[in-house]
Every structure is written in C-alpha cells, then in structure tokens.
C-alpha cells in the first residue's frame, strides 16, 4: 500500500479510535444526503411506476387507432395477433353517453370491451371490486367505483344509457330509446379520473349505442414482457394495411407529454436534493482544509522523510474519496432501510397524527410505492463519490503547495 493511502486511512480511522470526529461529521453529511436522495427518488419513482403500470393496464402496451372508423376488424385483429411478440389483442369502442339512475344523470366515458378477449390485454378482472366480469353481457353494465358511489347505485340496480345517437335520430324523426342495463359489477383502478366516471359495457352494446354496426374505434395490444413498446408499435405499423389511416402507438408515445412531466418532476427534485450532497461536499472540504492547517508541520515532516508533493496531495484526495465512499455506503443502507420500513413508518406517523383515513381517501392507497431505476442509483452513487473526491482536491492542492521548510518552521 502506498504510504499516502495508508496515512489517509489512518487519519480517517486513527489507531485506538474508531473514527475521528471530523470524519464522522463529514461521513454523516454525505450519508444523509444520499439517504434523502434514495428515499425521494425511490418514492417518486414508485408513484411514477404505478402510474405507468396503470396506463399499460388500462390501454395495453400498444394501441391502434384510426381517424375514421375501423370497419372490417376481423382481418386486422388476426394479422396483428400474428406479429411476433404480440401476446393479446382486443378491439374496443368508446364514447361519452348519458347515464341515468333514479333521475340522477351522469355523463360517463363508456368503454365497449370484447368480453372474450379483453382479459388477454387488460387485467380487468383484477380491478373488479364487487360483482364479476363474467356477468357482463349485452344487457348489463359495470360502473366505476366513484360513479356508483355518487349515484348511489348497487349491484342489481337498473340504469339507463343513451348516446348522442338519440339526437341524431330525432333529427330524422326517428325514435331511439335509451337502453336499460343492469349493474353487475363495480371496478376500481386506482386512478382518480378513470374511477370517477367510467362505465364498461360489451363491445356489441357500444356498437349499438353509437350505431357503429360492426365497426370499432381501435385495438389494444399486449406485447410480451421485456419487449420495447416503441419497437413493437413500429412492427405492428408495418403490417397495417397501406391504404388505411390506422396507426399503432405505444403507450409511451401516446402519453409522452404526461410521462415527460412525470420524469421532469422527478429530475427536478433530484437536482434540488443534489444540493444536499453539494453542501455535504463543502463540509468535507472545510474539514479537510482544517486538517491541512492542523497538520502543517506533519506535512513538512513528510517532505523531510522523502514524500513528494503529489503524494501529499493524493493523501488528501484519497480522504475525500473515502469519505464519499463510506458516506454513500452508509447513506444507501439508511435510505434502503427506511424504504424497507416505509409502510411501518407511515403507519406510525398517521397513528400519531390521526390522519390515516384522510391519507387513504386522498391517495387511494395505504401503501407507499417505491421503485428505483438502476440508472438513477448509479447516478447517485457515482455523483456523490465524484463530488466528494472533488471536494478533496482543493485542500490537497493547498497541502501540496506547502513548502516543507515553511511547514516545519510553523511552530
């Protein structure tokens, strides 16, 4: 081991003492910064992850839409299903309608799903809280939880649904009677907007309500795990009929603005938190500078023993690096330890403040999500160690500039 490395270690961890006080403070500063970064990044990443998963769970990985109606969906479905990597396809039709229950109106988004295939793409059964997806047929309907709650409708209740087609027909002096459907299920996805105002009917019922005939609005596609959604969208586009105006979009592409905002939010918070590391690096720098001043005579002595100035510089640089390394390690342990216990900590907090119910009501879940991208973790670790090492450079430069004679005279 080169002497400067040995001495750096000894100055950080002197014989007979576990840790020097200065070192402990510096390491703690870095560790707190890293822990905060890890926890924040991971919880924010967790929310983002949940939201992404929800988008995929409700739209599929890839969605095919057209500006006009898709008339002949049979060949389309079979050709898309044959694309390698596609594991499920399901057609859909959607639109706004008026729903009435006990003279209370609502204007929900109506989703027409193919009950035979929808579970291949969208895990709908997982979201059903009451009732069952199996009972959905052309005369029944499944409501979102908030909608059912606000209308006060229960399983077995009868609602009527009418569509803009009603007005269309009236113009031609025809009569279009609202359809009466029985509620057979209530679902909850965990997304405010979808849960507040959505109803599920069969595709055929939706085609009837909107007068679509056999036409559909689009197709949701599920792709195999691990495949890139954008690449798959491109592959699917290649098999779509040339003449049509159908396009396949990945969920990433279709929600790019929303995803951008999510990512932006996370990055901004990370950058703000990086300032904690910067502040910690100043504490490393000032503690190492103090050390250089305190150890002026020893630095002179090292010169007298035959140490070169760049080795003396290395001794202090290594100390910055080691503080960064140990601080990062401690910070990771603290951060992941906290994340591991996050739900217990939250529970304790809500109990102490009596806010448990409010939390569940507003955030729709009682568990805190956590998800960390490995790239973010690498960024935090590398960034912290680099910043800490840089913090050692100025004190190191000061130490190496000391003239050994002046240093030895420093009585």
């Amino acid at each position: 081991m080169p002497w400067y490395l040995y001495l750096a270690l000894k100055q950080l961890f002197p014989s007979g003492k576990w840790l020097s006080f200065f070192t402990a403070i510096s390491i703690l500063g870095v560790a707190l910064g890293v822990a905060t970064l890890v926890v924040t990044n991971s919880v924010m990443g967790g929310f983002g992850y949940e939201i992404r998963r929800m988008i995929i769970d409700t739209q599929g990985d890839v969605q095919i839409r057209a500006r006009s109606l898709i008339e002949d969906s049979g060949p389309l479905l079979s050709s898309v299903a044959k694309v390698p990597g596609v594991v499920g396809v399901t057609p859909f039709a959607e639109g706004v309608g008026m729903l009435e229950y006990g003279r209370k109106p609502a204007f929900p988004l109506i989703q027409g799903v193919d009950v035979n295939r929808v579970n291949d793409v969208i895990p709908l059964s997982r979201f059903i809280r009451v009732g069952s997806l199996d009972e959905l047929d052309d005369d029944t309907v499944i409501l979102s939880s908030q909608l059912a709650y606000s209308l006060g409708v229960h399983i077995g209740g009868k609602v009527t649904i009418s569509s803009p087609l009603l007005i269309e027909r009236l113009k031609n002096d025809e009569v279009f009677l609202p359809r009466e459907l029985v509620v057979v299920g209530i679902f909850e996805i965990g997304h405010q907007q979808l849960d507040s105002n959505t109803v599920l009917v069969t595709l055929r019922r939706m085609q009837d309500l909107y007068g679509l005939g056999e036409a559909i609005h689009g197709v949701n596609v599920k792709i195999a795990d691990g495949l890139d959604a954008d690449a798959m969208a491109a592959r699917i586009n290649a098999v779509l009929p040339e003449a049509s105006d159908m396009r396949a979009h990945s969920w990433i592409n279709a929600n790019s603005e929303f995803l951008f905002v999510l990512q932006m939010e996370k990055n901004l918070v990370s950058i703000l938190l990086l300032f904690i590391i910067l502040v910690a690096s100043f504490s490393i720098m000032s503690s190492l500078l103090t050390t250089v001043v305190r150890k002026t005579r020893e630095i002179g002595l090292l010169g007298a023993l035959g140490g070169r100035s760049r080795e003396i510089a290395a001794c202090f640089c290594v100390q910055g690096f080691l503080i960064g390394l140990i601080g990062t390690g401690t910070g990771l342990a603290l951060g992941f330890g906290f994340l591991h216990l996050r739900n217990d900590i939250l529970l304790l907090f809500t109990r102490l403040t009596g806010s448990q119910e409010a939390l569940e009501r507003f955030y729709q879940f009682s568990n805190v999500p956590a998800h960390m991208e490995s790239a973010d973790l690498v960024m935090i670790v590398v960034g912290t160690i680099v910043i800490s090492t840089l913090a050692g450079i100025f004190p190191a430069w000061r130490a190496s500039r000391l003239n050994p004679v002046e240093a030895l005279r420093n009585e």
Partner: protein
Amino acid sequence: MSDAVARNVLGGSAMSNFILKACDLHKTYLSGERRLEVLHGVSLSVSDGESVSIRGESGSGKSTLLHLLAGLDVPDSGTVHWEGVPDTGARQRARFLGMVFQSFYLIPELDAVGNVLMAARVAGKVGAIERQRAQDLLARVGLSERGHHLPSQLSGGERQRVAVARALMNAPRLILADEPTGNLDEKTGDSIIDLLLGLCSEQRIALVLVTHNAVHAARTARMLFMRDGVLQNTNL
C-alpha cells in the same frame, strides 16, 4: 579570511570520502523591505561516519543551513552533494537522510511503531524485515514495551526516542539533528544525545548536530560555530 575558514572547515583532503559536501552556500531572506543575508558563503564537508556539531546564536541560520543540506530548500547560490552526487531530491532523501527535530514531529494518529515504519513506507517498502527493524530500533531506544502507544501517551523524551528510531529506520548515511534536546529537560536531553551519538557510531552514520549545549557539542568529533553567516572552526 572566509577562504581560510572554508579551508579549515573542509578539513582533510580526502574529498572522495565525503558523504556530504556543501560549497559556498548563500541564502538571503526578504522580510518586508529588509534583505536578511542569513548564509554568507557556508561550506561544509562531512565524511562517512563523522559527527559534527554546529552551535550558534538563535537566528544565526543553523536551521536554514540544515534545510539546505537536507535538500528541503534551495540556496541562492552554492551546491550540495550527497555521496558525491548533486541530487538532493525526495527519492534520494528517503534513503540517504534521517532528520531529528526539536519538536519531534510525530504523526499523532500513528502509534510508535507506525511512526518509525512511516519512514520505510515513504521510502517505498514495508515488509517483515522492516517491521522487525522497527521493533529492534524501538527496543534499542528503550521503548520495546511502548510500540503500540500513541504519541499523546508518551512523554517528551520518549517521543524524541521514537523520532530517533524513525531517523535510523532506513539505515541512512547521514542524520541531521536540529536542536534535538531543545524541548527536553537536561537529563532526558543527555540520554537522547547518548542515544544519537551511540547509534550513529555503532552503525557508521554521519551526524550533523545543531545544539546550544556546549557539553553535547564537545562530544562530537568536530565542533563548528555559526557566526555572521559563515561556519567557523571553534578549534581555531
């Protein structure tokens, strides 16, 4: 006159045996407006295993001279040769030279053995042989039981013993000691000088001892006096 002094100070004519040879060293400090000519043509040659003492008033330039001899500072003019070579660089220093200072300069984070071994570390080699030598040297200076004590747990005299052991660690050809007893009481100082002189003659190491103590100076083979920026031979 200074020529005559120089010739006297140079001693005999066996130039090739000189372990240390300094010629016509000049050093001037600028303190504010004033130019302070500290060394005014100092020449000194020390042969292998020889012990030399330098006395002189405080501020006469003894430490300045030692720093030039150690290659820690550069003269305004003049030359310093170690073993006939004008290289006084850091790598050479680790191998060739040991130094003892008035204020010990031990590294507080290292125990006694660690401090002695530090010399070997800087020179680039710490193995079983070096560890054994460090133990032996500590035993030789009477601290065999104190190897794992930190400097803060040692008395002044004991610290200086550790510093002496450190100076001897790399088996140097020359030891420069700058008032090694200056911070010690008389009895402890005497024992340090005993050690230094004893070890140097034992291991045939040349010694340049700066001291205020006439008794200590008298125990060296040659006594010099620093005055008016030159070295004078007190035997004159």
